[in-house]
Every structure is written in structure tokens, then in C-alpha cells.
């Protein structure tokens, strides 16, 4: 290695290979070749292709964004329709509920009135029957008392005067 440097130092006249002018022609020649080749590769193939890919991607992205915008608008529309349907349904349900409530109330009132009427009729009937039974019972008490009095009188050995007994019973039952 050291001998190499020494040789270079003697041959090129410098310890720095960068200042060895004998290799400049070689380096410049191959640099120009390399640059021309890279330039041709880039300008003929690579750059147009990459530009096309980028443009295509940009186009795809733009289209996709537009489609997404459309879909978003549709989604908003659908949501509005859904909300409207929901509100309608709710109003309808409330209306039906109110209607049913009034209907039921009317039926209930009618039934209550009918029932009241029936109860009143039944009560009147019952009162009448009770009065009748009471009257009948009084009558029976009088007959039973008369009969009993007559029987008592005859049992005691007297002869019962029907009218007198009846008068006496009437007299007693009054009080």
C-alpha cells in the first residue's frame, strides 16, 4: 500500500490522487459517457413513465374523490328521507293513539251510563219488592195475631166473637 502511494507520488507528482492530472482525461471521458447514458435513460424512459404514472394516479384520485362526493350526497339524502319517514311515522302513531284513546273514552262513558241506569232500575225494583214484602208481612202478623187470639180465647173456654177479637188485635197492633 505504502509503495503504491509512493509510486503514485512519483508518477503523478502529488500525494493527492485528485491532483494527478494524468488521470483527468480518463475520468472526464467516462463521466461524460455516464452522464449521456443517464440522460438518455431518464429522458427517453424513466421520466415520461413516472410522469404518466403520477398523472394517472392524480386522475384516479380526482375521480375517486368525485365519486366519494356523490356517495356522500346520496348518504345525506338517504338520511334525510329516513328522518322524514321517522317523523311521519311518529306523528301517525300519535294520531292513532289519540284517536283510540277518545274512542275508548266514549265507549267507557257509554258503558258507565248504561250501568248506572241498570243499577238505578234494579234498585227501584228491589225497593218496590221490599215494600211489598213489608206490607205482606204486616198483613200476615195481623192474621196470625187474630187467629192466635181466637185460639187462646176458645182454649180458655170462652166463645170468641170474631169482630171483637179483630178489633182488639187492631187496637193492640196499632201501638
Amino acid at each position, binding site marked *: *500500500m*505504502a509503495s*503504491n*502511494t509512493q509510486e*503514485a507520488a512519483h508518477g503523478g507528482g502529488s*500525494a*493527492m*490522487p*485528485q*491532483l*494527478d492530472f*494524468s*488521470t*483527468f*482525461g*480518463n*475520468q*472526464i*471521458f*467516462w*463521466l*461524460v*459517457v*455516464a*452522464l449521456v*447514458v*443517464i*440522460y438518455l*435513460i*431518464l*429522458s427517453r*424512459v*424513466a*421520466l415520461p*413513465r*413516472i*410522469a*404518466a*404514472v*403520477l398523472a*394517472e*394516479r392524480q386522475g*384516479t384520485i380526482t375521480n375517486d374523490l368525485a365519486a366519494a362526493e356523490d356517495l356522500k350526497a346520496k348518504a345525506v339524502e338517504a338520511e334525510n328521507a329516513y328522518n322524514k319517514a321517522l317523523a311521519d311515522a311518529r306523528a301517525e302513531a300519535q294520531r292513532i293513539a289519540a284517536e283510540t284513546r277518545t274512542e275508548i273514552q266514549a265507549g267507557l262513558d257509554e258503558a258507565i251510563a248504561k250501568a248506572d241506569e241498570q243499577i238505578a232500575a234494579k234498585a227501584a225494583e228491589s225497593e218496590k219488592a221490599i215494600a211489598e214484602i213489608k206490607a205482606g208481612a204486616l198483613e200476615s202478623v195481623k192474621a196470625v195475631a187474630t187467629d192466635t187470639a181466637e185460639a187462646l180465647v176458645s182454649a180458655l173456654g170462652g166463645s170468641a166473637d170474631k169482630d171483637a177479637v179483630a178489633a182488639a188485635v187492631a187496637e193492640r197492633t196499632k201501638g
Partner: protein
Amino acid sequence: MGKIFFFAALALVVVSGLIFAPAEAKLAIHPMDQFQVSALFGDHISWYTPTNVTLWMALAVAAVFALLVLGSSRRAIVPGRAQSVAELAYGFIYKMVEDVAGKDGVKFFPYIMTLFMFIVMANFLGLIPGSFTTTSHIAVTAVLAALVFVTVTVVGFVKNGVGFLGLFWVSSAPLALRPVLAIIELISYFVRPVSHSIRLAGNVMAGHAVLKVFAGFAAALGMFSFLPIFAITAVYALEVLVAFIQAYVFTILTCVYLKDALHPSH
């Protein structure tokens, strides 16, 4: 787990340093040997001889071809890895040209892309241990810078005619100062290709030479060779950055010069 591997590697480095310690640990550093231009076949070098320059430039061309042509060959709407990188490189330079040089600079895009791809590929290939870095040579970068200089000057005169000289005539300065400024501007214009080329070659060369110096230390230090090896790792990471940044700087300066040629007014 990572810690175990780290300490195992460290132990291995120390032990191997002990075992393989050089019999005579002398400091033999030849950081510039890596830049030696040598013929691939035979000894004599004339202008057309295939040399290691030829080999590594051909590899750079092959790498450009592989990335930009083979990488994009599927023309996928959803790109794969290689196509993503190719598109990234395309978009990066295209946007740079458009932003810096302006809309009318876009027709120079293939030209600027050629420069960028060549430099970036040559720089990265040069980071392979044992390789030859073509962009570390002044002869190469000077030709690249001269191409830019000549192109920019020709474009400037073709586009603007004598108006291109307005680049040197600072109309916003006081009249008395303008001739002085014109001389300064003229000098700076002609220094451009010099700084343009030496910046690239100098950065690449310095980094590679530093790596070689540390490698020489590593060979001389025996069991403590792990210290320069860590340093080499750090410098190598920096060199990866430099490889890209110098290509970027060269390209963006080209765009700036092109902008001056297209719109010479200050």
C-alpha cells in the same frame, strides 16, 4: 435482549483485540490511497482505458436504471417500495426545479435530474467499504460544475440577450456604487463553478479520508481498537447524511443559477 447482544459484541471486540493484536503496532495510515485511479486491466491509463472510475460510474448508471426504470416498470397506481422511491426522487427534484427556477425552468428538469441522480448514486455507492468514490475527484465535479456554468450562461444570453448582463448591474444600488458592485458580481459569477465543484468533492473526500484515518487508528490500537471503530460508525452515519445533502446542495444551486439565467433581474 438488545443489551445482551451489545455487551457480547463489545466483549468480542475486546477479546479479538487482545488475540489479534498486531505484532508491530505501527501507525500506517494512507487515507488517500482509496482515491487512486487505477486501470482495471494492465497499468497504462489513457483517456479511454476502463478504470475503476469506469466501473463505479457504470454501477451508478446501473443503480439509476434499476431505481427509475426497473423500479417503475410495473406502473402501479398504488406503488411498491422501489416505485415509491423512484416517484419520491422524481417529485423531489421536480418540485425543487419548479419552486427555485420557476415554471419555465421545468424544461431543464431532465438535465437537473440527471445531475442529481448521478451524484446521489455515486455518493452512496462510494459509501460501500472498498469502493471507489467518483464524486471525490475534482476532475469529475469540475466537469459537472462547468456543464452547469456553461449551460446557465448560454441559456442566460439566449433568453435575455444583452439583458443578461443586468445580472451584474445592481439597479437597486446607488449609481456610484454600481460599477464596483458589477465587478464584485462578475467575480462571484466566475467563482461559482469553483465553489460548486470543490464543495462536493471536498466534502466527499474529507469524510472518506477521516474514515480511513480512524481505520488506521483501529489497526494500531490493538485491544482498544473498538474506540476508533465506534468513531467510524458515527462518522459513517454522518457520511450517509453528507452523501445525500451534498447531492441536494449541488442540485439546488444548479436550480438557483438557472433561475438567475432565466430571470436575471435582481
